């Protein structure tokens, strides 16, 4: 059952730590299932390890979830997840998702329940951490091209007052469209940038794994 905050006569859906835990577990499952595909995408324009990197990172999160006290708040789940990625991935995707989740976690500190608005805002700051660290702009054929539209979709959904299911469906779709759009791009960040025109025609692996992360969130909410 989904938690709600009642403000005046509006009942708002909220996210709790349990949702975020489930999110991380579904991410781990998705990366394990899709790692060969992601690595294959990375073989085309990178060094053939993105799947292994993401699988290793989210498995590390999964194995640390048990150690997290039952009372851990949403922020603590995100901080732990970010730290686990930083400590286990190594590849570009590790520190990027690491700072994103940690920044988002910091923003949410103290909260037991997180509104869509707060969550979208936290992810927006996570996105900022990504661009601060990696300096990628939109259109440079990176995970930012999936993450940015997904975060924007969440912010818009929050502004419209969508419910969480709608919001995360929209975010997932936006990420997917963003990842698809990376195919015709020339890369300007990450390993694919060395290839010049030869990267054209291939989707960016980090953008595709970002889609899986938003897809996992959608499912985490629906299955709750």
């Amino acid at each position, binding site marked *: 059952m989904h938690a709600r905050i009642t403000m005046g006569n509006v009942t708002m859906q909220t996210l709790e730590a349990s949702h975020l835990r489930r999110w991380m577990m579904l991410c781990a499952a998705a990366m394990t299932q899709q790692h*060969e595909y992601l690595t294959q995408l990375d*073989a085309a324009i990178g*060094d053939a390890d993105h799947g292994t990197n993401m699988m290793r990172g989210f498995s590390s999160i999964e194995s640390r979830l048990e150690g997290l006290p039952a009372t851990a708040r949403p922020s603590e789940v995100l901080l732990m997840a970010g730290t686990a990625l*930083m400590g*286990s*991935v*190594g590849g570009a995707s590790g520190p990027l998702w690491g700072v994103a989740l940690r920044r988002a976690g910091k923003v949410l500190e103290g909260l037991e329940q997180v509104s869509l608005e707060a969550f979208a805002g936290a992810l927006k700051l996570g996105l900022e951490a990504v661009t601060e660290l990696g*300096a990628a702009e939109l259109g440079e054929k990176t995970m930012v091209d999936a993450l940015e539209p997904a975060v924007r979709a969440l912010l818009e959904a929050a502004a419209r007052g969508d419910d969480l299911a709608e919001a995360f469906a929209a975010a997932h779709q936006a990420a997917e469209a963003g990842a698809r759009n990376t195919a015709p791009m020339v890369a*300007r960040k990450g390993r694919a940038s*060395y290839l010049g025109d030869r990267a054209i025609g291939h989707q960016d692996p980090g953008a595709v794994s970002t889609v899986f992360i938003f897809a996992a969130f959608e499912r985490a909410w629906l299955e709750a």
Partner: protein
Amino acid sequence: MKRFINASEDSVLETLAGFAACHADLVAVRLASKVATRREALTAGKVGLVSGGGFGHEPTHFGFIGVGALDAACVGTVFSSPSVAQILEAIQSADAGAGVLLIVKNYAGDVMNFKVAAQETAVPLEVVLVSDDCSITPQPGAQGRRGMGATVLIHKLAGAMAQSGASLTEVARVARKVSACSRSYGVALESCVTPNTGKRIFDVASDEIEVGVGIHGERGVRREKFAPAKDLVALMLEPILMELNLQPGASVLVLVNGLGATPLAELYLVFNEVKIILEARGVGIARSLVGSFLTSLDMAGTSITVLSMDEELLRLWDAPVCTPVLRWGM
């Protein structure tokens, strides 16, 4: 994948264990964290040198730990940067009170992990970003050039500077000078086989080569027809010489580096072609290094690095060094 390995997920640790046992006289390897340090205690007041990167580049990085070179290094998984935690541990281990120089090859993962680590440590740091691969045309705001053979030269030259008791600023100056004055270019005859897939990352036809490759097995900048060594060397050396703008009378250090599966004999032959071209231009080879120092798993290929030398660099190059890979003067 026919390689001398067991389960591919154990390769990194098993390789490091072999290295640790073989070089226990010089290097102390912490297998749990994949961080290694010099065997002997830190010299108080000496600037520490830390390098690191993915696995698959052996003997880089651990092979350059020792007197006159690195103090600590850390290694990630195959072609993946070490993590922030590992880098912090290496920094801590190398810090003898005079600060630490981080030697970082310009790859997104490495740069970001080292950046985050740098933000999280209290140890005074300088960072040198190695980006000597001139097969890449630099574009404003883009990822920029990859770090290649200059990394090896910085290990030695900045290492000698630190060993001489120089300050962090001075050690960083030397490292940046080497970075600024060197250029590299690589070609591959075959892709490497990555343990992640058990397959070659890309296929090169029997009459083709991949030009402008880095050290992570990724594709190069273009495909060309296979050609005799003299033509391949000219192809690699041309952009290097253009950028370094060497005049007759100039003096250089040449590193001919094997990428993993190239026999030493061929590297000497490549060096001979480099020498012929440089001599024709009146450029003198003051020092040289031929061997497989910075590899890309079992890639069949070679990279050439040229460093423009001056008195200071000559002196630092000749200074004693005692590491598993480089050893002279002591």
